């Protein structure tokens, strides 16, 4: 059954996917470590702590130390996952990630819950809208956000099995399950959800489900849509973007500032190719506030309606 035919009703937060997958990985490989910073419950690592205490470290509220400690562990062959919130995992420890993890290219994973606007009622201080953009500019870093529970599990597994620093971003809130449990995902290779020829949509993370709904509506109105889940924004799947450039009309959708995230990454390729128009849907370079998640998305135009409307606007071009 095509994803477009599915009713996306069952929901699960992707931070749960990390919590479940990391236990499985830790049991298989004793070198997998989790480093917590006092938010284990919220980051879903409590099961790991219970079952694999010898592979767990909690440094308390000290993110910078967590990143450096992870680097030290990695020099001895461990595969540490530093588990925190996206605002802290990208910004509080940005310099430690740069100096001690990316510069020496150590095998450390930064696993972050509360990506984008998903920590909605916590307010603007806790909503990570610039994290993927910041991490994308560090050499050696891979930047990934799965769209749902199952894809996130596969991507966490891939991250553990590849060498080098990876930034993984999860949702705080439940998002619809899109994929089948056995669907395979490869870091750096976009997942084509629908093929079409009138317009291309490239989405990632918690906005993929919105892009799917928009695609359904557009297809119902006779618009043929090519839809990609670009779970890895670095390295970007250039081939997938090239496919979209052939159509020439591209919409990017992300729960991230429109600056320096997925939209920017796609624009870089489009500009280099000198062909195609891009419309970026995402956080409008503004901080959030406490509000329901859907409300925050709507305040930034990250909605099914806006995707559909933007598509029709582009089709007029």
């Amino acid at each position: 059954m095509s994803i477009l035919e599915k009713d996306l009703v069952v929901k699960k937060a992707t931070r749960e996917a990390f919590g479940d997958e990391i236990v499985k990985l830790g049991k298989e490989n004793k070198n997998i470590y989790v480093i917590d910073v006092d938010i284990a419950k919220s980051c879903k690592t409590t099961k790991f702590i219970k079952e694999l205490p010898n592979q767990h470290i909690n440094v308390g509220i000290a993110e910078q130390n967590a990143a450096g400690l992870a680097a030290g562990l990695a020099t001895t062959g461990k595969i540490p996952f530093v588990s925190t919130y996206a605002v802290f995992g990208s910004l509080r420890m940005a310099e430690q990630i740069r100096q001690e993890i990316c510069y020496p290219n150590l095998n450390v994973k930064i696993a972050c819950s509360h990506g984008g606007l998903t920590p909605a009622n916590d307010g603007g201080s806790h909503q990570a809208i610039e994290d993927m953009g910041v991490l994308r500019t560090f050499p050696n870093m891979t930047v990934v956000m799965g769209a749902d529970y199952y894809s996130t599990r596969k991507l966490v597994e891939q991250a553990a099995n590849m060498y080098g620093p990876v930034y993984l971003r999860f949702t705080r809130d439940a998002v619809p399950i899109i994929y089948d449990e056995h669907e395979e995902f490869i870091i750096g290779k976009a997942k084509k959800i629908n093929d079409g020829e009138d317009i291309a949509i490239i989405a990632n993370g918690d906005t993929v489900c919105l892009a799917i709904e928009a695609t359904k509506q557009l297809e119902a109105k006779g618009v043929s849509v090519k839809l990609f889940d670009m779970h890895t924004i670095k390295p970007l799947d250039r081939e997938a973007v090239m496919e979209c450039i052939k159509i020439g009309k591209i919409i990017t959708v992300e729960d991230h500032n429109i600056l320096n995230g997925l939209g920017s990454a796609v624009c870089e390729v489009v500009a280099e190719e000198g062909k195609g128009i891009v419309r970026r849907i995402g956080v409008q370079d503004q901080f959030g506030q406490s509000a329901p998640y859907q409300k925050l998305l709507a305040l930034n135009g990250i909605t099914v309606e806006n995707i559909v409307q933007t598509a029709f606007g582009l089709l007029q071009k």
Partner: protein
Amino acid sequence: MRKTSVEELKQLAIQMRQTALTMIYKAQSGHPGGSLSAADLMTALYFRELNVDPNNPTWEDRDRFVLSKGHACPIQYAALALRGFVPYETIYTLREYGSPFQGHPDMKKCPGIDISTGSLGQGLSCAVGMAIAGKRDQKDYRVFCLLGDGECQEGQIWEAVQTAVKYQLDNLFIFVDYNNLQIDGFCDEVMPLLDLEKKFEAFGCETRYINGHSMEEIVETLDEITVNKNGKPKCVILETVKGKGVSYMENVAEWHGIAPNDEEYERAMEEIARGLQ
């Protein structure tokens, strides 16, 4: 294995200082002040204490050394060159394109560097990670970490100490090169460090305060602290003089990060050699 004697170490410390200064002079760039203040400890570590193998620098059971005050790398490079981790001639390539001797230590380019450093305040966290791994893997290796005094103004140092105490890392040995100078002047003026020994002690370390230029005291201290498996990380504050061994560099903040000219270099080499008597 016979341990290098204090007298031999004193001789080696001269070579260490001369080698470090020669590389800075040749490069006309680098940090002499903090290299010279750490020279005696570094000599004792590299020629007596550290269980490392120049022919197998990534040997998994080796002792680790983390130079958290990464700008003092000329003195570590001197040790690596004199111990044969790299050909001695490497000292003439400091800070040059393609050199293993980068401006700050780079583990990817230089054998014998256990972690890249250079941004202050971060090395101790890495050392803590290495020491935890050693404990968990039931390995006997030890982790030695040298901090600058000014660097202890960074909050991350104290985050790392907390963790070392929590995880009872008695395989971790922290040294503070307390020369009381940083780039903008005396630490007491820039940001007073107060009683560093008491601070580390209050955090839960077993501490010592010694003369960082007395090879006798350094050796005696190393011999004591390395046998004491009491569940506590050890911290040694070394009272030192920035630029030690070169009269015109001693206690002068400006010599933190500049290279000597021809005349200054000659005088420095002579003074260092004479310092022995």
